[in-house]
């Protein structure tokens, strides 16, 4: 085994904590839903496509977003639910583009299946728009090399994993995730960085995602 390479820059783990802010906006029909999706802030689209996954980790790989869940379970529009659930969030580096995609999926469906315009939610089952307020805080965990990094990965919260994978990629409009960035730029291991960047976080539970990352790094450490 070769000695562990010390990183050019240490990796500091951050955590990202959310507070849910109510907008007071609600939709009863698909028409209202799509109209409000056009209007709400990006942090609301983020909330309904990302927070949902985090709050309902055990769902994955079932409906990965709130919109899919609502149209399926409340409006009974299973086909639209499937179309929304299968949007490949990995493709979208910006919330703006993701929002446009969701709008086009719903509007196409409304054109294709005209009677779906007549469906409405019962009182109390409307779609309530919420937005996320995020607090980004540095933790005390710092890794200087890959072995330390793997050890810390086992301990940090899901919120921290979330910040470095999801928040970094999408909300902050970075293309790769923080882990692969650091491994490529500070450890110079492009192969490992690419392997981590290729993980699709949207079809796994966070626990599975943590396990997959640790597995890939442990394998690399063993090879060294």
């Amino acid at each position, binding site marked *: 085994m070769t000695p562990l390479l010390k990183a050019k820059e240490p990796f500091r783990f951050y955590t990202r904590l959310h507070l849910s*802010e109510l907008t007071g906006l609600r939709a009863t029909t698909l028409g209202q839903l799509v109209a409000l999706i056009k209007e709400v802030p990006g942090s609301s689209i983020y909330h309904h496509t990302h927070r949902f996954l985090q709050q309902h980790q055990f769902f994955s790989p079932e409906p990965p977003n709130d919109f899919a869940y609502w149209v399926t379970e409340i409006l009974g529009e299973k086909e639209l639910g499937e179309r929304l659930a299968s949007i490949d969030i990995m493709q979208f580096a910006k919330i703006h583009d993701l929002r446009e995609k969701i709008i086009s999926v719903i509007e196409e469906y409304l054109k294709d299946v005209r009677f779906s315009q007549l469906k409405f939610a019962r009182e109390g089952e409307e779609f309530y728009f919420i937005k996320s307020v995020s607090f980004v805080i540095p933790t005390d965990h710092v890794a200087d090399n890959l072995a330390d990094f793997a050890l810390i990965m086992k301990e940090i919260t899901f919120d921290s994993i979330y910040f470095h994978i999801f928040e970094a990629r999408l909300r902050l409009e970075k293309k790769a995730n923080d882990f692969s960035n650091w491994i490529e730029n500070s450890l110079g291991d492009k192969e490992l960085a690419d392997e981590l960047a290729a993980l699709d976080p949207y079809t796994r539970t966070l626990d599975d995602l943590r396990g997959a990352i640790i597995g890939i790094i442990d394998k690399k450490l063993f090879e060294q």
Partner: protein
Amino acid sequence: MIRLEEYIPIVGQSVIEDLRLIAARLKGKTIQHINSTSVGGGVAEILNRMVPLLQELGVGARWDLIKGGEQFFEVTKKFHNALHGYPGEITKRDFEIFLETSQQNINEVDTCGDIVFIHDPQPISLVKKRHGNKWLWRCHVDVSNPNEKVWNFLMEYIVRYDAAVFSAPSFSRRLPIRQFLISPSIDPLSDKNKELPQDVIDRVLLKYRVPKDKPIVTQISRFDRLKDPLGVIEAYQEVKKYIDCRLVLAGGGASDDPEGALVFTQAMEKAKNDKDIHILLLPQNDIEINALQRASTVIIQKSIREGFGLTVSEALWKAKPVVASNVGGIPLQIKHKYSGLLCHSVQGAAFAIKQLLNSPAYAKKLGQNGREHVRNNFLITRHLKDYMLLFLSLYHGEDVVYL
């Protein structure tokens, strides 16, 4: 006194570390909670645990009470019911009584906190005293369909706050101030929720003469029309045609509540020909409630209205499959077919109970999912985190805050 480190085996070291990271950003601030009672009711129960934990984290926290006579609390009870949407006349005199007592409290209560955190409508008028500090109004009531007269009266005060906090999205309305969603929580270390040895559970069953020979279906609730105990019996009767089981309806004392006593009598009457129905009027004994929940095969919460319905989280924390009405905060706790089953009627409840009794593997999976959902979202540690973030949000208006 329970200490933070005791939660580590349940939520993990890193969750507690996060609490310390946030708390460090609140150093030097004093959070002043104000409500109307120090004992009884969900607010007092939460504050009794929350305030010492905040103090342990190094956040200045204090808890003050307003005063009020019998008449004042009769009026605020009327307000409470009206906010829940009950019909009932609120008179001009009622508002006068509220204003008179409110003025006395404005004169007497020292609102010196950096953040003054007002719980429920009783102390709402204290905001007239604001003097450069931050003010939060925490609404613990279901205000999805409030009596407009009372709501409009309260709005005069609500708009003076920096932000309002609600327990469920359906309670939110368009307001000119920021509003946040913070669910209440259960304490996994409390007598009501902690692990119990089997012999304790068995002793409670023996005490209340509930044999373990058949599956037990249970609803824990006070005898209140809004908890629909008669509907629960009807659902059980539907199930009983196909599956031999027992029903336990257990709840707190109703002796000082005339309507509660009537509902209890009606439930007894409806159940009188079935020895497998156990209607238990329990004293306030959290261990016994805990034991009955743990002894159950399926737990029901067939409420017609709910503020939040924390009995659902209590049941899910015990990994029990739950059938519950789709009202109030219940849909936050149960995602249908993933962490429990939601229903809208007696027939729907009966069908769901039959499904769970006939499919133990499915029931087990829902219960396990439910427990993890509660671990992530409805324990006191999450509540503490949300409250501290809420306090920080008062000093930051942006959607992404770097600390």
